[in-house]
């Protein structure tokens, strides 16, 4: 130690001299090293693109154009007949592609709704504690004590057939009018308002942990206000949970649409994967299998990809694994 110079500046270690990487940079690097994760991400991206494309008006036309007689099997004669036709001769392939629109709408908006509610309540409960925590904890324990499928069905029944004020555009004139709720909106509300419990509980627990961390104390000692501590210091530290929940929650939402529609509570008036399976339950007895297989495969592949991706994200974002590679 006698060799130590009187100067007290610190020489950087050579092994930290690489480029700076953030938490997200690190996670991306770890994710990109897993081929299965990248394949799944590719699959999800394809679904996303198809889902976005399905908003084009051409899809609305195609699903209502009979291309052949009813119940024609799959054939390679034309793209329209690739997956056969349904009872009215409408092309199954277009119905399937159109179904991604519904799936995408439901997944995105139900996730935004449920994650928004769950994250907000979770952070507030975890950070403030006391009676605020008591109320929120009571709320989510109560909600979670009812089986969610029952709760969701009850909610759909409550919303079904009622008139709500809607913002509509008629003859290019936007105005409010009373109308029945669109089934897609109904499913989004039912899912979003019942499914926030899981993420809320998760976030609350994590915030309880971070609240006591020294960096939060240090931020307060530097004069940072409560709102800023929550949004800038705590939220980014728990945000990986939101991403994982989104990925795994999407699976549940796609499935929930199918379940609700199969029970006759979901989508009406336009094709969705749930409707296709619902239609197919009678067709199968007559040996018409293509509609059921197409919809099931579409759901199965998406769910598998999202599940695997969710797992990979969980591994990649797990702070305990940081620096392990």
């Amino acid at each position: 130690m006698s060799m130590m110079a009187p100067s007290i500046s610190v020489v950087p270690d050579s092994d930290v001299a690489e480029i700076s990487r953030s938490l997200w940079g690190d996670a991306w690097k770890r994710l990109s090293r897993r081929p299965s994760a990248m394949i799944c991400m590719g699959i999800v991206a394809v679904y996303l693109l198809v889902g976005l494309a399905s908003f084009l008006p051409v899809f609305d036309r195609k699903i209502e154009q009979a291309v052949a007689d009813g119940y024609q099997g799959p054939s390679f004669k034309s793209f329209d007949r690739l997956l056969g036709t349904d009872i009215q001769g409408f092309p199954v392939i277009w119905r399937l592609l159109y179904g991604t629109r519904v799936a995408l709408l439901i997944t995105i908006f139900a996730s935004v709704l449920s994650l928004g509610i769950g994250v907000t309540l979770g952070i507030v409960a975890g950070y403030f504690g006391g009676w605020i925590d008591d109320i929120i904890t009571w709320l989510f324990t109560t909600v979670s004590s009812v089986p969610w499928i029952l709760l969701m069905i009850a909610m759909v029944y409550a919303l079904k057939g009622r008139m709500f004020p809607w913002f509509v555009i008629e003859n290019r004139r936007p105005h409010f009018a009373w109308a029945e709720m669109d089934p897609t909106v109904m499913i989004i509300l039912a899912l979003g308002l019942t499914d926030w419990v899981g993420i809320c509980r998760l976030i609350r627990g994590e915030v309880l942990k971070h609240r006591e961390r020294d960096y939060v104390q240090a931020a307060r000692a530097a004069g940072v206000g409560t709102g800023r501590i929550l949004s800038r210091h705590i939220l980014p530290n728990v945000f990986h949970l939101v991403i994982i929940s989104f990925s795994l929650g999407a699976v549940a939402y796609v499935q929930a649409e199918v379940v609700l529609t199969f029970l006759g509570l979901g989508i009406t008036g336009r094709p969705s994967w749930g409707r296709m399976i619902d239609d197919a339950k009678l067709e199968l007895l007559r040996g018409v299998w293509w509609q059921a297989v197409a919809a099931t495969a579409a759901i199965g592949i998406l769910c598998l990809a999202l599940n695997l991706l969710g797992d990979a994200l969980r591994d990649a974002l797990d702070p305990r694994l940081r620096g392990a590679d």
Partner: protein
Amino acid sequence: MDKQEKMDQALLEVRNMTVGFDTERGQIRPVRNLSISIFPGQTVALVGESGCGKSVTALSVLRLIPQPPGRILDGEVWLEGRNLLSLEERQMRQVRGKEIAMIFQEPMTSLNPVFTIGDQIAEAVMLHQHVSSRQAYEIAEQSLRDVGIADPGRRLYEYPHQMSGGMRQRVMIAMALSCQPKLLIADEPTTALDVTIQAQILELLRKLQREKGMSILLITHDLGVVAENADVVGVMYASRIVEFATVEDLFDNPQHPYTEGLFKSVPRLGHRGQRLDTIPGTVPNPARFPAGCKFHPRCTRTRQAAMKEHPSETVEIKSAGETANVLRLCAQEEPVLREVKKGHWAACHLIDDFKAAPITPPVLQHRREVVPRTVEGGDKGILVTAKEEFRQ
């Protein structure tokens, strides 16, 4: 006000502060009737074992104790003519970080893991100074340079996990000093660091104090750190200051039996093959403070005094599984802090003429003479070298 006058006026004055926490077993008081003054450019150390209330004192000054369950029950905290305890929370936020900054024990967890060093320092700067983010980054870079971090321009863009403990503590200090606070509260700043880094950080604090003329409230349990950096020392035991003196006075002539015990329990160079003295028993839990002097169950002085005293003046107590006789006075009446000698306060019945000593607020303006030294490192006991310096 000229400069000298300003130096003579206390920057921070804590008057008779009592802090309470509501627990399931009733209210506990981790800090009771604490008074302390800090003058510009001065380093005041609070020393004591874990749980004696020194960290709660520091957090209470910044009003950072969790409320509820914590509450400041009594007292005043004056900072340059303003009572911090009567400020609005919004005004208090302007004090935190700008007038009084704080650094913590654990540099490994005191930085937010998801932001770069530069982001975090710049955030602190922008909170208190009206500057653009580019200027804030420039200030951040300069403050990293001030704390001796090489290549600060690049370090700004690094994350906390890329740095060692000593570096992170430097970053914490840089962040704390980026707004030029008048007072720095350092809560065990070197406890989590190894000895050579400890010495560097202490040297750095001394250097920055000299350059910027700020005051430091140093919270520690390490007498070596006190000897190195403090001008004035308050020894805390069980929620109260039991002794208050200049660092030289305290090390040469400790008055309170607890302070004596602390010095005896520090290893010394050149004393081989002897067992270290320890203070028997443990620090009492604030929920179950003993009556009378809080130190009497562990005190050797009262035991020795009891042997010479008439049995009617003593009581038998159980402490750490043993029974012992102590003075009735010690077991029943809690001594208050008295000025037992000029500029030396202590709270012990068994100091000569203790009853006659005046009760005065503990105020010491003393600043030690600056002895510029370079860090020599961990092979020499810091405490011993520093004590040797005083003796000469």
